[in-house]
């Protein structure tokens, strides 16, 4: 077992789904640190908005948008999804529409519940 499984690179030849490990290249650490500084910066922007703006719907929307941007960097850079096969990317991202649908509908519902009370 000492031989490296990375030899299984050419899937045409000896693809064995059980021990198939695609060769993964290092993308260097530059982008990682870039991602870190961006995330840190976004968090600081969050905090800045928190102190300079009064609490209202606009501020909340800014927070949510910044949250989504942060999620983009975490999933894209840290979780490496940017560099994965784009079909894998789509199959992870498309199901999120169901969550969005649930959010929209339940916020409507929460509004209706508050009218009832």
């Amino acid at each position, binding site marked *: *077992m000492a031989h490296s499984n990375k030899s299984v690179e050419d899937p045409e030849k000896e693809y*064995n*789904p*059980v*021990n*198939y490990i695609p060769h993964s290249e290092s993308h260097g650490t530059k982008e990682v640190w870039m991602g870190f500084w961006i995330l840190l910066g976004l968090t600081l922007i969050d905090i800045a908005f928190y102190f300079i703006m009064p609490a209202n719907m606009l501020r909340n929307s800014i927070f949510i948008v910044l949250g989504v941007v942060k999620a983009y960097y975490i999933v894209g850079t840290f979780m490496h999804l940017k560099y994965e096969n784009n079909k894998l990317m789509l199959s992870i991202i498309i*199901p999120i529409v*169901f969550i969005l*649908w*649930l959010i929209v*509908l*339940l916020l*409507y*519902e929460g*509004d*209706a*519940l508050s009218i*009832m*009370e």
Partner: protein
Amino acid sequence: MSTTSHLETETHGHDDHHGHEHHKETFISKYVFSMDHKMISRQFLITGIIMGCIGVFMSILFRLQLAWPSESFGIIETFLGKWGKDGILDPNFYLALVTIHGTIMVFYVLTAGLSGTFSNLLIPLQIGARDMASPFMNMLSYWFFFLSSIVLISSFFVETGPASAGWTVYPPLSALEKAMPGSGLGMTLWLVAIILFIVSSLLGGINYISTVLNMRTKGMSMDRMPLTIWSFFFTAVLGLLSFPVLLGAGLFLIFDRSFGTSFYLSDIYLNGIGALDNVGGSPVLYQHLFWFLGHPEVYIILMPALGITSEVIANNARKPIFGYTAMVISLLGISFLSFIVWGHHMFITGMNPFLGTVFMFVTLIIAVPSAVKTFNYLATLWKGNIRFTPAMLFAIGLVSLFITGGLTGIYLGNAALDIQLHDTYFVVAHFHLVMGSASIFGMFAGIYHWYPKMFGKMMNNTLGYFHFWLTFISAYVVFFPMHFMGLAGVPRRYYEFTLVPEFGIWMDVNVVITIAAIVGGLAQVFFLYNFFVNIFKGEKATQNPWQSNSLEWTTPVEHIHGNWPGPLPVVYRGPYEYSVPGRELDYYPQNIPSDGEDDIHHTETVKVDEPTIETPTTEVDSSKVLFASFAKLFGLNRA
């Protein structure tokens, strides 16, 4: 990790693998904690059948009460003890029976027993893989399911009885221990059982998905996968995305029940207790989260049955399935729509009426893919060279039940009509036909069709015919009259209707339904006998008893770990190439190269009475056949 290396040695050394495997396997590793997908599928099936027997038996017990209210039956006291004192069913326990019947049939039989069994059996075999992606997690999936079944059954033996709030366990009834006996420990056990079930379904689901994506053999492109695999794939995706939401809903419910939170509870008044301390919660939110699972769950149940039906109908009609791509797209459409329509279960719960309109709109769209599937089944049968095996009968029965039950879905999906029909027997009739009976028929079709693959033995056809006709007729006699009861307003989940004189006219119908239910229940004895006795005494199966194209029939009858003794088969065509013109045999297995004429391993001879050559339809494109027939029918054919 040990599993990985285990499989590696196996895939690398095929030649010595036979003798090599045998003395290593003990009874425990072969039959109990097996990691072989074929054994796990048998474990799922047999557990599912046992749970199914329990579920059906419970339905007969409460049907007795509905037909002959407050009359004494010895059998009730024998089985239920203190809840059936003097043979009369306790009203609280009536609710418990209804609840556990629903839970068992929905989750344990039709989710685990159907999709668990056939996904495990067929995914590796039909796509040409040696096992699941992770055999170990596959084993865990079964054992979580088993544990979950044990916990659920054990709730019958606690003092206050099992959960009684209906299979949807709506709070506040399920959240308040003092509301009724069934909301005590039994309810906690129900929740524990369901959480174990969610874990099992998650472990199974990610396994099925990655196996289908990653482990297809050479040439098995996505458009050459049998429709069974497509349906299991979409089913797994549905389970993967919807069960976690039930986990969330269940967590909130557990906190409300055990830790005094107010997620679903507000200051409602409880008889004998007074107003509750809780403030601000809303049970409607539970229903949203529950039905976010609950509606996909309906398709988790139904889609494997539809996939099995596609396979069985194409095989036994000896025709390519009509509209393969349309079938796949409609499965995809159903899967997508199933996530956005859950609110049609909640039209009259006090939900925002605007949402009711949205949900009604998207719900009615589901009729489109469902109709596509139905017509494709009918078009496949059209002018087919049909073999009426028991599996085929059950598959056709599914189509019939799917149409009958599906049509009433259009009524119930309508927010205005639902005001009248909600929580009546109309709903009971609808979902028992379209989801319950249809899926059970798909499961039977699968069992009769793949029994030779699972156990290496044949089932008895005569018993199968008895089983089918009795089950089919009794399914209709039981559920069809319920439509009329529902239209008249008879509510479901009522212990008896003697106090409502208007419903007196339905008493005779209830007697008919109960008798039919008992006949239908007894009909399953034919199946059970056929199933269990033939495991040991059945006629030995040939390798490809149904002259089928798909890969599972190229494996040896004796199960071996790794499925194929030699290298994996290579796929050269789609799975539904039946009655190909110019070919001597009326089937064309997926693994036979096109040029090498019939170098099929002659392990079985085609039966003499099979009219293999003079098949009426030799055209491959079945749509042309259909259009030509329509043209003839309407006199459009000028030629």
